[in-house]
């Protein structure tokens, strides 16, 4: 048994992956990745909700601006967008800082990552939520109107709860994309999971071990997310008979 263990090099791998060594770095990278994914997903939801409402009910100018936003963001590869938004964003902040008499500003990696990925997520979320809002039967909203609900209350009490069941599958997709898009932030030198993995692998020459470990961590994130979203979807679909048949 011990022989097989040694033969496969698992003993060495276990040592390499110990929490006090490179394994700890990987977990810190994962924490950074998740932090950014959470933030970006949340920011994307906020942008998406405003975007969807703007596209559906906004004036002509609002609708045109939002159409440009969603078209451009969804047309350009994420990697290119990250490079553009990151360098342009930090450049603008520095220009403003210098103009106001300050020195160069150190851009917080987490904040930059959230901002960049949030803008990307927002474009997709706009379309997911717009579709979900349009899927709400018009009678639900008419009923709310006819009983004197103000517009914001209709949104909060009727439209958003009623659209959730249509939105959750799309949003779950967006969340998973968010977790994996964090890997792209490696190109701007942010210490997320992929960059940590690459550093560990190249320092130790144990590429297989570290990339397999990183893949495992990403898989765990996906599996946990799946379980969470299954519960969210069940909640969002409350009151709707199961599609599998059988009324209850």
């Amino acid at each position, binding site marked *: 048994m011990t022989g097989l263990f040694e033969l496969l090099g698992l003993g060495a791998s276990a040592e390499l992956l110990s929490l006090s060594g490179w394994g700890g770095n990987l977990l810190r990278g994962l924490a950074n990745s998740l932090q950014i994914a959470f933030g970006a997903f949340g920011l994307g939801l906020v942008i998406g909700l405003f975007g969807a409402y703007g596209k559906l009910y906004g004036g002509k100018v609002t609708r045109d601006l939002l159409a440009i936003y969603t078209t451009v963001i969804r047309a350009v590869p994420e990697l290119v967008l990250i490079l553009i938004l990151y360098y342009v964003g930090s450049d603008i902040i520095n220009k403003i800082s210098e103009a106001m008499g300050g020195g160069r500003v150190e851009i917080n990696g987490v904040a930059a990552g959230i901002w960049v990925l949030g803008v990307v997520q927002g474009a997709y979320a706009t379309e997911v939520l717009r579709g979900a809002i349009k899927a709400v039967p018009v009678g639900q909203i008419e*009923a709310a*109107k006819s009983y004197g609900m103000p517009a914001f209350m209709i949104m909060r009490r009727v439209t958003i709860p009623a659209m959730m069941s249509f939105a959750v599958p799309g949003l779950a997709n967006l969340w998973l994309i968010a977790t994996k898009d964090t890997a792209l932030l490696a190109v701007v030198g942010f210490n997320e999971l992929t960059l940590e993995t690459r550093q560990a692998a190249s320092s130790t020459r144990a590429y297989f071990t570290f990339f397999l470990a990183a893949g495992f961590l990403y898989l765990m994130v996906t599996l946990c997310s799946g379980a969470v979203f299954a519960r969210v979807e069940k909640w969002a679909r409350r009151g709707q008979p199961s599609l599998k048949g059988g009324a209850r």
Partner: protein
Amino acid sequence: MDTAAAAASSPETDTRREAIRVEDLHKSFGNLEVLKGVDLTAHQGDVVAIIGGSGSGKSTMLRCINFLETPSSGKIVIGGEEVVMRGDGSPANQKQIERIRTKLAMVFQQFNLWTHRTLLENVIEVPVHVLKVPKAEAIARAHELLNRVGLGGKEDTYPAYLSGGQQQRAAIARALAVDPSAMLFDEPTSALDPELVGEVLTVIRDLAAEGRTMLLVTHEMKFAREVANHVVYLYQGRIEEQGPPAEVFGNPQSDRLKQFLSSVA
């Protein structure tokens, strides 16, 4: 009902408080003029049945009264208060129309219960969130109303698990929960299976008997004749004929109404 009908046609009708008045109401969808100048007055306690063929504008008229449709021109007065309209017919004061809507409870052809809420939640939604009634009070009242429409014990059921007739009765309970000064029924039984129509009509009949003000767009001629004290026949966006049910149904004057009545009988 005969005495009520007599009262409606007698001169002292005018001393009763006016609930809904519609004056010279026009409504166009694009080039299609659906309402071509409709005048209608309902007093407190009136049950006005609005009948007419498909496309006659009867539902549109009802929906203009609470501004679910924007009138093209005309005047709507609810409980003595005129809805202030912009040039394009939309309500000029959103707060005013929202306040007026809380007094007009609508019952829809497709029920339109909020599907993500249980029956109890549907019934307390407007009292609690729009009218700011204390929640405990609203819940007690909701139990009463659901019992009244024969849905006691179904409080925690979601609408999708109920029959059409049950959903419509729940929708009526939701309407009653706002303690409306007038109720608008938009073909409340048209989407129901024939064997479920009766249970909904029974509930509406009870409401009429207790003196509620109602405007009722319906295809149920027998029912209209029985509960209404005033019947309005719309034809192509105009009121062709109106009067007490005994006259409108028993002695129709215009050929169109005669033809319509014989086709639906």
